[in-house]
């Protein structure tokens, strides 16, 4: 047990070192990098991916995967936005609608995976297509525009000088951390992900855990859809494409194993920040968009290799 803890600290250390090197490099290369406004930019830009990645952490610890994230973001975004025209409903209605849609998609994912024993990859792949299609059907393919000021404030306003999406992200981190590390539910998630059969034999209701985890991930995708649509003041059915991959990358960079049973919220946050810092830094340096793709891939690979080395 003690040895395992040391390994865990080492793996955290490895990813932190990678992160600090990246920050050091970028602050040397660009004088604008460490300015307060830029740091706020990075945090705000990472918040949507961060919210999704917290949910993805639970799913991957459970040895699952959620490919439907990007599409569920789009579906929640268009449905929430459609209730957010000024003067129609109080703010709570679009917010609740977005969360409910996300939660429902997640629940369906979890239910089918748990009860019908369908591989998470397949089920969430199906949901990815269904939710994207539903978003297009709902809007006829057009973005939902002319949203109320109060809705646009979710993504655009500040609280104590900190962008609201960042505050939402921090709250979600805290809730995720408490759920995963401080509750029976969290222990059951680790146990189910590590060895489902053993967990079931020891009396854990693994089916129920699975349903809850995917529902949670769905609600967080819904929340991400609300924040995203509010930030750009329009709910587009084409939004969110590729967000599942950014979230999976963040979780894996953060040291969570795709085989399940191992992982932390802390690691995911570092993973999310690495991706965010990288996107921001490459823009600041005006690296050509062709090269950005190459550089991003290499940095993700390096971060994971470094993490692997340290966790051995």
């Amino acid at each position, binding site marked *: 047990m003690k040895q395992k803890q040391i390994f865990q600290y080492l793996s955290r250390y490895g990813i932190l070192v990678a992160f600090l090197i990246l920050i050091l490099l970028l602050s040397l290369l*660009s*004088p*604008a990098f460490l*300015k307060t*406004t*830029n740091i706020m*930019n990075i945090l*705000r*830009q990472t918040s949507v991916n961060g919210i999704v990645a917290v949910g993805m952490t639970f799913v991957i610890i459970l040895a699952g995967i959620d490919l439907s994230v990007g599409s569920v973001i789009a579906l929640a975004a268009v449905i929430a936005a459609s209730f957010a025209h000024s003067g129609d409903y109080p703010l709570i209605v679009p917010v609740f609608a977005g969360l409910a849609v996300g939660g429902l998609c997640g629940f369906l994912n979890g239910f089918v995976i748990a009860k019908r024993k369908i591989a998470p990859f397949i089920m969430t792949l199906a949901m990815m297509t269904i939710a994207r299609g539903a978003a*297009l059907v709902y809007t*006829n*393919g*057009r*973005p939902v*525009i*002319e949203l109320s000021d109060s809705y646009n404030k979710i993504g*655009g306003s500040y609280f104590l000088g900190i962008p609201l999406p960042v505050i939402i992200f921090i709250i979600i981190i805290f809730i995720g951390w408490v759920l995963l590390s401080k509750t029976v539910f969290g222990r059951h998630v680790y146990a189910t992900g590590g060895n489902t059969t053993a967990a079931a034999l020891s009396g854990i209701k693994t089916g129920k855990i699975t349903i809850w985890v995917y529902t949670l991930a769905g609600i967080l995708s819904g929340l991400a859809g609300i924040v*995203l649509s509010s*930030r*750009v*003041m*329009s709910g*587009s*059915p*084409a*939004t969110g494409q590729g967000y599942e991959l950014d979230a999976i990358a963040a979780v894996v960079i953060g040291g969570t194993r795709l085989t399940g049973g191992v992982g932390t919220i802390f690691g995911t946050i570092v993973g999310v920040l690495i991706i965010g810092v990288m*996107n*921001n830094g490459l*823009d*600041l340096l*005006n690296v*050509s*968009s*062709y090269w*950005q793709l190459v550089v991003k891939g290499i940095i993700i690979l390096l971060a994971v290799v470094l993490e692997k080395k340290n966790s051995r």
Partner: protein
Amino acid sequence: MIVIILSLCCNRHPSVQYSHTIGVTYQNLQNEFVINIQDAMRNRAKELNVKLIEVDGQGKAENQISQVENFLALDVDAIILNPFDRYGSAPVVSIAKREGKPIVVVNAVVVNLDKADAYVGSNDQEAGRIAATYISQLLKGKGDLALIRGPNGHSAEIQRTEGILEILKGYPDLKIIFDQSGNWDRTQGLELMENWLSTGKPLQAVIAQNDEMALGAQKAIEAAGKQNDILVIGIDAIPDALRAVKDGKLCATVFQDARGQGILALELAVKLSEGKRVDHTNYIPFQLITKENLNK
């Protein structure tokens, strides 16, 4: 039960006799601009009593190829191709001509365009030229610019960039200091702009190759309180952008006439299937939309 359902289905379309059947393959129906072409084409088809068989290429040239093979099996009278890929969608034209079917290409181009019976579209280089010319006039030929491109390699991205650079070549004091792709996406336009602004380099104008990205960039500029210092121009004239032009948030947008393209493409396809002759190249012009001419 089945009989009832079937009879209901049939009753909804009481044996209409269509004058022509035309197959249309769209590049991607997740794009608002393409949907506008579709709407115009559908309305005109209804008026002319033409049956449309519509399919969505979903952003893949290979889908468009198999779709046109299906059209041939259905023995349509003519085909309308809205190509996704300049090269990849070109076989669609060859296949149609091999079977002797009339084919009209709309909106985007393919390399073997000369083999098609007709082309309806707007020259994307012109859109780039119009946007860059207007910005260079407003800035009196001097200043630092940011360019937000469409997806790398997309035909509109390539041509709009060519048009923009062609004009800027004439103004040595207009420099592009930032240049990235925003993939037609509003969020990406917003985040690029946030990042560029935080470098602290002064900027005089942003040219975005579509309105979504222009609106995203504008939002970042407004949040930084620089809306009076930096001009933003977009292309497409989507409703949200027209509102922004009216409110003075965008200095202009360039209108591409989706409706005009859709209507003319359908009319040409009908004429061709009746054996009539049509002009090969039909350009629908772009128009600069500013606050002054917005209400026209």
